[in-house]
């Protein structure tokens, strides 16, 4: 029996200007529990818009969207990791990790438990008392991840979370993310510009095409988990990276006249 989809979009569309063209959709998508879905696509294909619709930050113009059978913006266990770490500079790391729990009025002892667990997952327990400006870019991103994980999320939305980091840190955080996923079962929707990152992390890759944003390709990534440094050298991995790159290039607009 097929489990009901966790994220379900039916003819979902978004236009910012009522008279203008649709930025996204109409688009159909069903994400099953436990999937790690990466979203690739050229700029302006509506990747971030899709994520913001699912998070409830944006309201759809038309179509239906449910997460675990509920309308967006009503779930307590949906977490969002932004492109920047967006830590509050006046709070110590520990308080930053607790911020979302505090907003939800989670009692202090429960907050502390989840905060410690989340900091442990991203291996930053020893930085709990530090202020964000005392951390490196990679560490800040890990705190941001810990803040999302502290919600003990069922759905994790990640909007190019490692985009601003150098490649080494990026690879490293990718591996950590998978290690955490092995211990905390969440369903991920991961927007990225990096094909290699998408193939390495995901169980499924969506390639969006622009004007309007729509799903051009929906590919399963059948590499076994756990994945590690070895995976990056495996022939299957390299073949998939080449294939996804070729398909991504095919949906990129040929001429840059719009720019």
């Amino acid at each position, binding site marked *: 029996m097929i489990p009901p989809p966790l994220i379900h979009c039916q003819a979902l569309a978004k236009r910012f200007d009522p008279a203008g063209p649709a930025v996204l959709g109409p688009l159909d998508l069903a994400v099953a529990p436990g999937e790690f879905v990466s979203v690739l696509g050229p700029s302006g294909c509506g990747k971030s818009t899709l994520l913001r619709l699912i*998070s*409830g*930050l944006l309201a759809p113009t038309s179509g239906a969207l449910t997460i675990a059978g509920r309308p967006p*913006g009503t779930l307590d266990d949906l977490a*969002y990791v*932004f492109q*920047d770490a*967006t830590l*509050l*500079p*006046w*709070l110590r790391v520990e308080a930053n990790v607790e*911020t*979302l729990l*505090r*907003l*939800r009025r989670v009692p202090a002892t429960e907050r502390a438990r989840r905060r410690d667990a989340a900091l442990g997952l991203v291996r930053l327990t020893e930085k709990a008392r530090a*202020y*964000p*400006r*005392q951390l490196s870019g990679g560490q800040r991103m890990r705190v941001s991840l810990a803040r999302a994980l502290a919600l003990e999320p069922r759905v994790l939305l990640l909007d190019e979370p490692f985009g601003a980091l150098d490649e080494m840190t990026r690879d490293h955080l990718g591996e950590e993310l998978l290690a955490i996923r092995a211990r905390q079962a969440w369903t991920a929707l991961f927007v990225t510009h990096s094909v290699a990152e998408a193939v390495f992390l995901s169980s499924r890759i969506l390639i969006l095409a622009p004007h309007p944003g729509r799903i051009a390709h929906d590919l399963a990534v059948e590499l076994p988990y756990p994945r590690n440094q070895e995976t990056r050298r495996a022939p299957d991995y390299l073949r998939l990276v080449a294939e996804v790159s070729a398909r991504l290039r095919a949906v990129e607009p040929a001429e840059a006249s719009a720019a």
Partner: protein
Amino acid sequence: MSPRLLRRLPPLVLAGLFLAGWQGLHHALPLGRRFLFPSLPQLAEAFEVHGPALLGAAGHTALASLGGFALAALVAAGASLLLASSTLVRQALYPYLMGLQMVPVIIVAPILILWVGPGAPSVIIVTFLITFFPLVVNTTQGLLSVEQAHLDLFRMGRAARWQELLLLRAPAALPYFFTGLRIAAILAPIGALTADYLVGSTSGGRSGLGITALLFSARNEIPGLYATAVVGCALGFALVSIVSGLAWLALHRWHDSYTPSDS
């Protein structure tokens, strides 16, 4: 020489040069005009003779400027929260706030004397009027200058409006509040002194530096007038130091205007 001492040296040298220059200027003036610019010994004498009176007056002015300043900080914090809460409120109230700053003290003064009477309360009100505007403008600006990404975070966290205001906007506005506080700290003693001059109590023992200056001026006591100016300056410095200390306490651990210590 220790680096600490080395850091203190330039201002000390400058102070020496300043005093020497002062004395030199006094002697450079023609004899008949030297009374306009008292020598250092004359100034010292003025402090000796008028010391107790100056100290008492400085105390009254200090209290009044602190009172007006604290009142302005409190009301500005509250008003800013109100102003930041909605564009409509802001657009409606802003012209009146500006108006408050534009009413000349010299016109408010006689009205205050009629309503409140001369004395400390009137001085505090004038000081409040002078220091309120920079505080409310800066703090409101701070409450509105929150990063969009942080607002998205709070919206994602389904924060209530009061949570957004208290947990996000208020701490983000702290640096702006302290900028306003610094400006207000400079204005407050000047304001209190001017206010004392205009609406201060003239009954013995309750007047501040403004009335003191008025009396010196009337009696042609030029060194006393200079001494009053020095005391007024010192008050300003004291208040600015207090504010700088508070700002350091509130901001040094996280704000970029303070370089991170190697802790």
